[in-house]
């Protein structure tokens, strides 16, 4: 299996190529350009660097949010265009960010800035979700983390935006710079583990568009196995 993944859900953009569990290539940029101009050349760069061609790709995965609404739309639309008839997978941006800190013994806490004094955030302990992805005030999130009674590791660009508050909160530490932006290789990992979530390209939806409830319930069942 050859999985191509894309992310444009924050200031950075990233693409990666994973073959049967081996990361072949990954690009990551934060160049101030709009993601619509960056993404396709990045995909092309990954394919060239790995010596593969688009027609060898068997799965297209995308970070579908939460995140910048515009960036998510660009990534999802690009993924649809590239996928054609291939299976596709949406991965939650927060979960993919947390995957970067796999193996950390305490709560891994991805955060993205959500405007209006809020964050998109969740938390994972030993790979298990302990706080579901949510949009809330920063302080509400920190209160929830306090209940976990264990030193946290903050990842995602929200941890950069709110660095001072996190440092004084005494809740844990902030990850190094490479875990503050999303690297697309983690999207491949999650997508390849979950064939039950694969869909046709036409069914890809950014997470900010919530489908009717019956369909949502079915998708959630599929996601949680």
């Amino acid at each position: 299996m050859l999985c191509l993944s894309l992310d444009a859900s924050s200031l950075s953009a990233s693409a990666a190529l994973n073959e049967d569990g081996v990361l072949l290539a990954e690009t990551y940029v934060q160049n101030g350009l709009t993601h619509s101009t960056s993404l396709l050349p990045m995909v092309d760069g990954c394919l060239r660097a790995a010596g593969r061609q688009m027609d060898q790709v068997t799965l297209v995965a995308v970070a579908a949010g939460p995140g910048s609404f515009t960036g998510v739309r660009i990534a999802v639309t690009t993924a649809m265009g590239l996928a054609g008839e291939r299976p596709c997978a949406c991965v939650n941006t927060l979960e993919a960010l947390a995957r970067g800190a796999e193996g950390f013994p305490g709560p891994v806490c991805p955060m993205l800035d959500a405007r209006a004094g809020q964050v998109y955030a969740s938390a994972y302990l030993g790979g298990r979700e302990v706080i579901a992805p949510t949009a809330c005030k920063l302080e509400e999130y920190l209160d929830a983390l306090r209940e976990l009674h264990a030193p946290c590791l903050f990842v995602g660009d929200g941890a950069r935006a709110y660095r001072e508050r996190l440092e004084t909160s005494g809740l844990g530490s902030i990850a190094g710079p490479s875990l503050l932006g999303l690297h697309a290789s983690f999207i491949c990992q999650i997508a390849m583990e979950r064939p039950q979530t694969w869909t046709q390209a036409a069914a890809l939806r950014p997470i900010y568009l919530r489908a009717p409830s019956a369909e949502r319930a079915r998708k959630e069942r599929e996601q949680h196995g």
Partner: protein
Amino acid sequence: MCVYVTSCEEQTEALAALLAEGSKPGDVLLLEGGLGAGKTAFVRGLARGLGADASEVSSPTFALLHIYPGRLTLCHFDLYRLGPGEAEELGFEEYFFGTGVCAVEWPDRAASLLSGARTRTVRLEGSGEDTRTIKLEGFDALPEPGRLLALGIRRAQ
């Protein structure tokens, strides 16, 4: 313009449900008012009036758009977190000029996009456990006075 006064959430929902009965494909309701004014409560009533599952209607977490199937499809937008200029990039005109009924919280975030749609304005004022004044503008049909009376909803002025 027409102004009503509701004294609880249920009355706001009931007023919205009555208005939904008269709604047509392509109607776009702009819901104005601050946090806690009752915009989402109003949408819950619209859903009920359109025969959709009203229990599903909630303030969104990170969703900008929830879709509820009913007699007409209800497209519920909450644009609170949208940045300047973002609405234009997201392709929402597909819904605003579609065949469902749109209810838009924080419509000022997409003012230029919405200006060409068939809009009606619902302005909710008040906060807390209190009465709300609800101003309606641009509706073709208003609820029958008798039905409002039965629900205990007053007309102001």
